[in-house]
Each structure stands twice: as C-alpha cells, then as structure tokens.
C-alpha cells in the first residue's frame, strides 16, 4: 500500500516539475512580451499545485496527520498571482504598447491606463514611453 502511495507521490512531483519547466521554457520561447506573460502565470500553477497535493498526501499517509498549510498556500497563490500578472500587463501598457493597438472600449470612455482623468500614474513616468 505504502509503495503505491510513494509511486503516486513521485508521479505528482514529476508532473509538477514538468509543468514548471514548460512554463520557464515558454518564457524563453514565446516571441512577444505579452505572450511571455502567459507562460509563468499559468503553466506553473499546476507545478505548485501538484507539489502541494503531494505534500498533503505525504503527511496524511506517512505521518498520520492532516496538514493544512498547503490549503493556505493555495489561497495566497490564487490571491497574488492575478495581481502580479495585472501589474506586469499594466507596465507593458504604459511602456511598450501603443494606444492604437488596443481594441476600442465600445462604451465611449478610454481604457483606464490611458485616461487623463484617471490620475493614478505620475506623468513623468509616461514621458519616456517607448512607442514600439
């Protein structure tokens, strides 16, 4: 029985590792900056997730206790990963992407990043915006 669980845990860890490697490889391979953002935000969540599941099963089977920390790590990951991705995307919008490349909002107002009324960004940060 324990042997089977060990194989299962090993499989989980290997699968997680493979996905983490794919995520990093995507970071190298994809040509555009916005495309590279996709690789680490997604292909790595399964990497972390399967390591956490493996950890929970390990403590349950071999130590005889339930470990709850992994659930918290999952929660914090789900809270922080989208915010990090959004920050990076915003930085891209400010520094490297031209307003004309984006689709129109269709409701009359601008995208918040480019709206002069939304004064969340200091103007001197935008003065060196790269038009390419």
């Amino acid at each position: 029985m324990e042997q089977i669980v060990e194989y299962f845990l090993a499989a989980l860890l290997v699968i997680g590792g493979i996905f983490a490697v794919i995520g990093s490889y995507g970071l190298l391979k994809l040509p555009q900056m916005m495309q590279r953002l996709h690789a680490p935000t997604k292909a790595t969540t399964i990497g972390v997730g399967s390591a956490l599941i493996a950890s929970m099963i390990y403590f349950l089977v071999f130590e005889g206790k339930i470990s709850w920390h992994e659930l918290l790590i999952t929660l914090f990951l789900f809270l922080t990963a989208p915010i990090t991705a959004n920050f990076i995307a915003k930085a891209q919008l400010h520094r490297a992407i031209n307003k004309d490349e984006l689709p129109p909002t269709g409701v009359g107002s601008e995208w918040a990043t480019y709206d002069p009324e939304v004064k969340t960004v200091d103007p001197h940060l935008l003065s060196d915006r790269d038009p390419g």
Partner: protein
Amino acid sequence: MLRRLYPHPLLTLLLFVTWMLLVNQFKIGSLVMALILATAIPLLTAPYWPNRPKLRNLPAFAAYLLLVMWDVVIANIAVARIILFMRGDQIRSAWIAVPIDLKSPEAITILAGTITMTPGTVTADMSACGRVLLIHSLHAPDPEAIVQDIKTRYEARLKRIFA
C-alpha cells in the same frame, strides 16, 4: 448585541479559519487566540469597509471555486500544448474587449482574477467607466467565442453569487 460584536460574520469566520490553518494543529491556546483575533480585527477595521460586499449564495461561491480550480488544470494543459507544439508565428495573440454587466467592485475583481488564472487569458486593464475589461489572449483564433465563454461560464455565475 451579537450583531454589534460581530459586524462582519464572514470576515470573522475567515480570520478564525486562517489562524487555525496557520497554526496547523489543534490546541486550546490557539483556539482562544483565533477567537480573540476573529473578534478584534473586524471591530478595529470596521471603518475601512463601509460598503461591504453582499455574498448572497455561499454554496454557489464554493461551487464557483471548484469550477475555477478545474479550469486552471485545463488551462495549464492547454497553455503547455501551445508552448510546446506551436511555432511562434502560428500563435495568434489578440487583445479582446469584454463588456461586463457586473457592478460590485469585488465581483469584478474576482472575475478579472478568474480570467487571469484560466485558459490563455490575462486581464490587463479596464475602461475608465468600469464597464469593459481589456484582456490579452495567448491564442485566440475566435475572439468572440472567448468573450461568450467568459460571460456565460464565469460572469453569469458571479452575478448570481453577488447581490
């Protein structure tokens, strides 16, 4: 009386559970500490959330979390396949504007976060009026299908969860 002591029952519950999970083992001492924190923090921070979100439907929210977790797994596999098996010039990335009907900031935040965590899409920006989300899709041969998918799969559920 109870209402005044616990003005935000959900926050109290969340703090209590989080503290118990952090301690990672059951002890009376940490139970007491969790109770103190779960009582004090909502009372002390009450001025910071004048308009707290109304969660109408807690079971539906739990079901939503499970759906998103499943979709994250699918998204991982889909993105991994794109990275491994598609040449750089075959990948059709696109900016897509998604009009949204949700009004509450919390619901929109959850929708934006969900979009970022699921199939090949990242939320990048929002219109200044808050009615359209700007998302970037890694591979979007049919942008309209992605908009419909987000609206029916996630937004419709969130509308039912948040009043």
